[in-house]
C-alpha cells in the first residue's frame, strides 16, 4: 500500500531534502511509524510524547485536516495523499 507524503521545507532535514516520500499504513499512526523507520525522528516532530498530534503541525489526508477526520486514527487507503504543513499562529497575548 503506497501513500504519498508531502513534507514541508522545515522537516526535509529528516528526508534527505526530499519534498515527497512514500510510506504505508492503514492509519495515520501506522504511516508515521513506517516513515519513522526510514526517516528517524520525524514522528517525534508530529506526535507528542502522550501520543497526540502536535499542535505545531497540520496534517491533511486528501486535503482534509485530520483534526476534522479521525486525528491520528484516520484510516488510509492505497493512493491517498498526505500533506504535512507547519501550523502557523501567534499574537500579542
Amino acid at each position, binding site marked *: 500500500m503506497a501513500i504519498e507524503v508531502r513534507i514541508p*521545507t522545515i522537516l526535509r532535514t529528516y528526508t534527505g531534502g526530499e519534498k515527497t516520500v512514500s510510506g504505508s499504513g492503514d492509519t495515520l499512526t501506522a504511516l508515521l511509524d513506517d516513515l519513522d523507520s526510514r526517516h528517524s525522528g520525524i514522528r517525534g516532530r508530529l506526535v507528542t510524547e502522550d501520543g497526540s498530534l502536535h499542535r*505545531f503541525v497540520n496534517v491533511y489526508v486528501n486535503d482534509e485536516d485530520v483534526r476534522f477526520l479521525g486525528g491520528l486514527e484516520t484510516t488510509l487507503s492505497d493512493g491517498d495523499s498526505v500533506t504535512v504543513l*507547519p*501550523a502557523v*499562529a*501567534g*499574537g*500579542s*497575548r
Partner: protein
Amino acid sequence: MLALPKAMVDAVVAHARRDHPDECCGVIAGRDGVATRVFEMENAERSPTGFVFDSAEWLRVYRDIDDADEEPLVVYHSHTMTEAYPSRTDIRWSATAGFPHWLLVSTRSDEPEIRSYTIEDGVVTEEEVRVT
C-alpha cells in the same frame, strides 16, 4: 534586511487596519529571497490578542506558492494594543513555522508602525524594512 515594494507594505497596513481591533495575518511569498506576492489570510481565531491560520486556506496558499517554485518568505500579523514587537507566543511559534521573516504591524495608534524581525532559536533580531 527585508526589501518590500511599497504596494506590498500598503497592502499589509491596509489589511491590519481593516481587521482592527482583531489581529490580521498573512503571508508574503518570495523567490530567492525576493518578495513576490502577498496573501491576505483569515485569522481563524478572530481575536484581538492572537491569530491562527485557517488550516484549509493555508493548504491552498502553500500549494499555490510551492507550485510556482516560490517559498513562504514572510509571515505578517498585527498587534492591535501593543507595539510591533514579537510576543512570547510569536517566538514560540517561530521555531516551527518555518518563516525567514516575521513582519509585525501595530495598529494601536493612528499611525501604523511596521517592523520586521528574524527569530532564530528564540533570539529576536530586528531588521530594516526597506521600502522599494
